[in-house]
């Protein structure tokens, strides 16, 4: 294990039997780093991150988190292991207030809960101001911060972020991604799926490119950003992404 927070070893996964979306995918996420997965639509990026979070059946292969085989473990148990997942959409409880959302996330924190709640309000002051409002009433950016706050509530070792900048204004998107980057300085490992490729590559340490459910290219994010082939396929020519 050493410096590896998460290792995905040749998994096959999908929603329907006999129809794997992921085919022999390998990922290694170094500890305290930010790793980004990019790829065209339908590449299986979200499926991969859901499979790690325990929401999609893994039919073959293994997922190792901090040296422990977590393949096939229930999502609620994974949360207890320090693996947090922020879905792309519907990632906060809209019918609960912000305070209730956070209380829910902190319900197993016991005596530590008040201090952690205060800590989250410090980190996300915009949430503190609106603590008694329904989460459904928040703006896109605020909602994304609440989602991240929920994920951070139990001091996870790794946070999986599924397109956190989707649907946000460029300013809010940059803010959210930079916040995620900042988390790695505090000892959290980040695994990120992003469409906002340029920005993600600028911030991330390492990058995997997925297409059609398989690994394509991987390497240090800076190298891929500079790579002309990657640039042509994934950064410049947007229309290729749609095909």
């Amino acid at each position, binding site marked *: 294990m050493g410096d590896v927070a998460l290792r995905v070893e040749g998994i096959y996964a999908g929603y329907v039997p006999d129809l794997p979306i992921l085919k022999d995918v390998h990922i290694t996420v170094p500890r305290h780093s930010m790793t980004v997965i990019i790829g065209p639509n339908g590449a299986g990026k979200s499926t991969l991150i859901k499979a790690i*979070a*325990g*929401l999609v059946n893994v039919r073959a292969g293994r997922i190792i988190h901090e040296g422990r085989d977590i393949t096939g473990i*229930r*999502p*609620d148990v*994974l*949360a*207890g292991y320090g693996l*947090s*997942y922020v*879905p792309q959409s*519907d*990632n*906060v*409880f*809209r*019918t*609960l207030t912000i305070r*209730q*959302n956070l*209380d*829910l*996330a902190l*319900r*197993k924190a016991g005596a530590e809960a008040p201090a952690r709640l205060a800590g989250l309000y410090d980190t996300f002051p915009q949430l503190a101001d609106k603590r008694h409002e329904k989460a459904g009433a928040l703006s896109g950016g605020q909602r994304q911060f609440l989602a991240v706050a*929920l994920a951070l509530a*139990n001091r996870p070792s790794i946070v999986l972020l599924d397109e956190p900048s989707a649907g946000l204004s460029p300013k809010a998107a940059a803010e959210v991604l930079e916040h995620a980057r900042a988390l790695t300085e505090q000892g959290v490992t980040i695994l990120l799926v992003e469409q906002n490729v340029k920005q993600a590559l600028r911030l991330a340490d390492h990058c995997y490119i997925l297409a059609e459910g398989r690994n394509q290219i991987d390497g240090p994010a800076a190298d891929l950003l500079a790579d002309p082939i990657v640039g042509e396929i994934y950064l410049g020519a947007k229309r290729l992404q749609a095909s």
Partner: protein
Amino acid sequence: MIQNLIDGILVGSTLSLGAIGLTMVMHLLRFANFSHAELLSIGAYSAIVFDAIFSTMLPFLAAKIGPLSMTWALALSVVASMAITAMSALLIDRLVFRRVREKGSELSMVFASFGVAMIIRNAVGLIFGLGTHHYTKDIVFAVVLSRDPMILIKPDQVFTLAAALAIMIVLHLVLSRTTIGYALRAVAENPALAQVNGIRLSHMIALVWLVGGGLAAVAGVFYGLSNQISPMIGRDLVLPIFAATIVGGIGSIYGAVLGGFIVGIAANIALLVLPSGFSPSVPFIIILAVLLIRPNGLFGEART
């Protein structure tokens, strides 16, 4: 008119208690549970059994509570019946619904619930006979509140209304003030997100069955206090309770409370214009009206 309104409110409180559990189950497990009303039947009949046991073993409990027809033994039986009915609901889920859920579609669940309803209803008939039962043999006289217009009310009815409202307030406090309440609401809103936030789905499903069963037991006993108890309780109440959930919007607990009262009141007011033989049709007319005017109910959200 006022008498009908009062009667409607009293019936409504029973329907609300039944509808709360039904709407929770329907929302969380995504199926129309046709066996929910049989839980009211289980509750009403368990209370008969416990009542007999308690009043024989502890004769001093057979005394009436104040002006009510209800004895201390029956009051205690309500609690015991809640426990039994809640456990029955959980057991039925373990034996049937959970297993169908794991292999089948939501439609199979609906069929299974009909099968379960048939089995329970007829098993109750086999065990307790097809005739009717009453909690008390005494005739409880209604108190005349007014002679013009004539308004009658029984002490039992006032008690059941107060108790039903108290239970709803407790439920409200749990849902709006405790993390277990937040967890229930979270699971109802977004099961996948609830799971990744560390909530164990199977525990919440069990909790919903327990709460639904417990409330159904209270509803069954309260219904039995002012009506006859027969194996057909479930058959007679299933449609009004469904109507209450639809009026409120499937999944909305507060909607179910309001829906229960609306259906109860509407059914009693309808008796002013319709011959009483048609009263079983009233819930369906209400359902049609809601579907025409506001398909997702008062508090429901569109969800397909």
